[in-house]
């Protein structure tokens, strides 16, 4: 699938999503679900870029999201930085952490990278709750409350009025998607794929593993951290509950449904998973069971996800098609 076709698909998807408030604008619940779909689509896309295209088993995506959320909240609450700027600063903080995490990962492969990055996820909650965390303004076990909303050109995007916030989130999600598509189609994307397919040969052909691995960690953690900061200003409060296993698994389901390395599958996976997750709310404790069964069936029936199925049905080849389904 070439870049133009990818951009066309994303334009159609986001164009249709942009029309949804016409039909559902009166329902705050549905608008909230749509905003969450857009936020998670960015996180899932970043995870797809690092795992599906660069072949790096980074399990730190939720951690980068939470780091960004806390960083932006702390910048705005404690230092008085306007939220629209603090979200970018949060992206920079997450990117810096991402690069620090990447450095030991450069010497590791496969499951060992997953272990290191998941260790970051695991130690983040105790850190945020600790005295050290409290000292930098994380609010300890209580978390952060009264995080100010984003203001732009004198307008404040309150979560009580979801439609304006929805469109703001849509703009952010579109920009992030464009960045990801451009990266995939650029020589960066080629470098990521070569390092995934055969790192030894890629290096022998002049690809710098150090440079491109650091780049993918920095870029994906920046975007994830930035959208995390955005999320914090939307919900207005943060706690370490996000670092539980539920969110991590839900994010993984998004990728599996969309198809790993099948961008823009991650975006579709995010919309599908968030919606199904909300629809299953009435079944309570059976929800994880149903979601789990669904993932099992999908993995067996559609190993390359929904987008992989669409590609094979319509014989759409290209970079994404061959990038997926070959995790090492």
């Amino acid at each position, binding site marked *: 699938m070439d870049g133009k076709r990818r951009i066309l698909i994303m334009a159609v998807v986001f164009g249709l999503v942009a029309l949804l408030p016409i039909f559902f604008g009166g329902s705050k619940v549905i608008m909230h679900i749509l905003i969450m779909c857009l936020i998670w689509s960015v996180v899932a896309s970043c995870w797809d870029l690092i795992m599906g295209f660069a072949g790096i088993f980074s399990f730190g995506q939720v951690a980068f999201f939470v780091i960004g959320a806390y960083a932006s909240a702390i910048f705005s609450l404690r230092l008085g930085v306007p939220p629209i700027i603090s979200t970018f600063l949060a992206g920079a903080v997450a990117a810096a952490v991402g690069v620090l995490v990447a450095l030991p990962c450069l010497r590791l492969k496969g499951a060992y990278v997953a272990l290191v990055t998941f260790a970051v996820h695991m130690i983040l909650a105790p850190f945020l709750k600790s005295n050290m965390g409290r000292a930098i303004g994380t609010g300890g076990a209580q978390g952060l409350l009264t995080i100010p909303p984003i203001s732009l050109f004198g307008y404040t995007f309150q979560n009580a009025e979801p439609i304006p916030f929805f469109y703001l989130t849509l703009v952010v999600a579109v920009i992030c998607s464009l960045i990801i598509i451009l990266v995939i189609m650029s020589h960066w994307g080629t470098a990521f794929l070569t390092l*995934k397919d055969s790192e030894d040969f890629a290096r022998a052909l002049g690809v710098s593993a150090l440079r491109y691995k650091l780049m993918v960690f920095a870029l994906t953690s920046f975007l994830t951290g930035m959208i995390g900061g955005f999320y914090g200003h939307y919900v207005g409060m943060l706690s370490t509950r996000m670092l539980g296993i539920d969110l991590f698994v839900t994010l993984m389901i998004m990728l599996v449904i969309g198809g790993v390395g099948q961008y823009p599958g991650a975006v579709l996976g995010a919309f599908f998973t968030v919606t199904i997750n909300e629809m299953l709310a009435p079944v309570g404790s059976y929800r994880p069971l149903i979601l789990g069964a669904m993932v099992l069936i999908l993995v067996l029936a559609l190993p390359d996800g929904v987008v992989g199925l669409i590609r094979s049905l319509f014989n759409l080849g290209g970079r994404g098609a061959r990038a997926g389904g070959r995790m090492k």
Partner: protein
Amino acid sequence: MAERVLLRASNLTKRFGALVAVNNLSFQVKEGEIFGIAGPNGAGKSTVYNLLTGVYPFEGRVEFEGREIAGLPPHKIAHMGIARTFQVPQIFASLTVGECVDVGSRFGCPGGYDRAYTSEMLDFVSLTDQKDRPTEQLNLLGKKRLMIGASLATKPKILMLDEPMAGSNFKEIQQLMDLIKKINQDLGITIIIIEHFMKVLTELTKTLLIIETGTEICCGDPVEVTANPKVIQCYLGDAYAEN
């Protein structure tokens, strides 16, 4: 006029714990020649390549065009003009044949990306008609040609081939030998080749180095080297060497 030494390895030693994989090995490769390396399995041939291309740190010195390359990462060594292939064909399964060759030019070519040269190299390895196919669809010979094509796209001064004939039939061996000769003669690229087929080495190379357990047994003219009793002993055992 004396031939210029392109690559000089002096006292190369590589230890993996207690195992000495390469032991005090010294050799030099002259510009424009085809230099062969042979030895039994486990002799340390591929390890030598890994040392020359920066995969492993080592003791000793390696000079390429008079510049020390020890300690440089593989991609920087590639930028200097040293390309290599692998015994087991390495391809980029996510890319097409054309994109795969493109990688060599885009990332490894010191003068920057050269689209025309990439097409030329695709043609050189006879893969132009398959440039839009996924790399995985190529047969073994195609994958070997692709690896060589991508390496050539970096515009190397020296190409190191690691057992290019492995798994090939006689017809394919002849085709690969013709390709290697063409690379050396038409493109003027110096070649180092690791190979088990002595016939290939005696026909292609000007200098042949035989190693066993990381140590040099002998080095010189391939016909003389293959007649050396030490080499016969190392390959076929004491009984053959005595006869």
